[in-house]
């Protein structure tokens, strides 16, 4: 994994993107602003699942009509996110925040899978109910918490408190996978 990231770092395009005057800020801004579409639409659905918004609208109507917008936002998020990683591969790979963010992304995926495969199976019973059963509300609440965590971690990647070259604590060194260079 590390050699792959270091190989990316040798790409001329990676350096060019990182140092570009307009491309990097534009991709970064697109990544940030798409949070309104991706997390914004998802949050509306989650709030309905928890029973805090759109209580008179069927859950299936929200998932059917809002999730496609959210998925479109997610696609833009992944595309711009990959480019941002490509521009600064080694530092991002060694970022504690980035690593927590990836774990949360996976957790978000599992929660979504769980909701669509298991929780939604008996949806006909509670589709129109203003306050869905506990399992549904938990899935919605967990989703809100996970994506809030993803946003916070994503923002924090930009700060260098825990960077390997700042001699972080041994725990952070281990978390970030810092390479300790032997001194002569």
């Amino acid at each position, binding site marked *: 994994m590390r050699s792959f990231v270091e190989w990316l770092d040798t790409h001329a395009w990676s350096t060019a993107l990182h140092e570009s005057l307009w491309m990097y800020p534009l991709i970064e*801004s697109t990544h940030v602003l798409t949070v*309104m579409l991706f997390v914004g639409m998802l949050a*509306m659905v989650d709030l309905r699942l928890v029973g805090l918004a759109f209580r008179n609208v069927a859950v299936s109507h929200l998932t059917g009509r809002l999730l496609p917008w959210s998925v479109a936002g997610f696609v833009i998020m992944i595309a711009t996110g990959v480019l941002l990683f490509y521009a600064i591969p080694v530092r991002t790979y060694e970022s504690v925040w980035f690593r927590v963010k990836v774990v949360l992304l996976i957790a978000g995926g599992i929660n979504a899978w769980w909701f669509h495969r298991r929780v939604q199976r008996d949806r006909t019973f509670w589709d129109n109910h203003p306050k869905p059963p506990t399992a549904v509300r938990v899935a919605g609440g967990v989703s809100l918490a996970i994506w809030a965590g993803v946003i*916070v971690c994503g923002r924090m990647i930009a*700060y260098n408190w825990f960077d390997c070259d700042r001699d972080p604590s041994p725990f952070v060194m281990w978390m970030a996978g810092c390479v300790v260079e032997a001194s002569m």
Partner: protein
Amino acid sequence: MFETFDRLEQTWIGQTIRESLWLFPGIEAVHLLGLAMLGGSVLVVDLRLLGAGLTRATVPAVLSSARPWFLGSLVLMFSTGIPLFLSEAIKCYYNTSFWVKMSALAIGIVFTFGVRNRIAMRRDAPRWATALVGAISLMVWFTVAAAGRWIGFS
């Protein structure tokens, strides 16, 4: 005008944030959480005004349900945005993006409460009017967000 910004820069709130390593990023992260919520609560209504999204619910029903979340995220945005501003008031004074954002924000608030929400609550509003209002709202709030992000680059 500059003297006002200079004095705002000197407030204890601004100074505390400047002297702290964590406060600015922490407040900024919460500001971003508010952005997601604001985006969702604006989009869901504007999409409906444009004839997309929750079409099985009426426009007034969608607006009524989204409004508390819009107001809540607006409160969150102001209560985090003002401290962020106080910590770098002078930088903002010289920052074009800041002025673009503030102008768009003022337009957005007046337009949302004065025009968009009123038209949305009327059941007899013609389709072209609701669509136009939805499109303008989307553009204005997008400008607020984009200019806000750009404050950090300049």
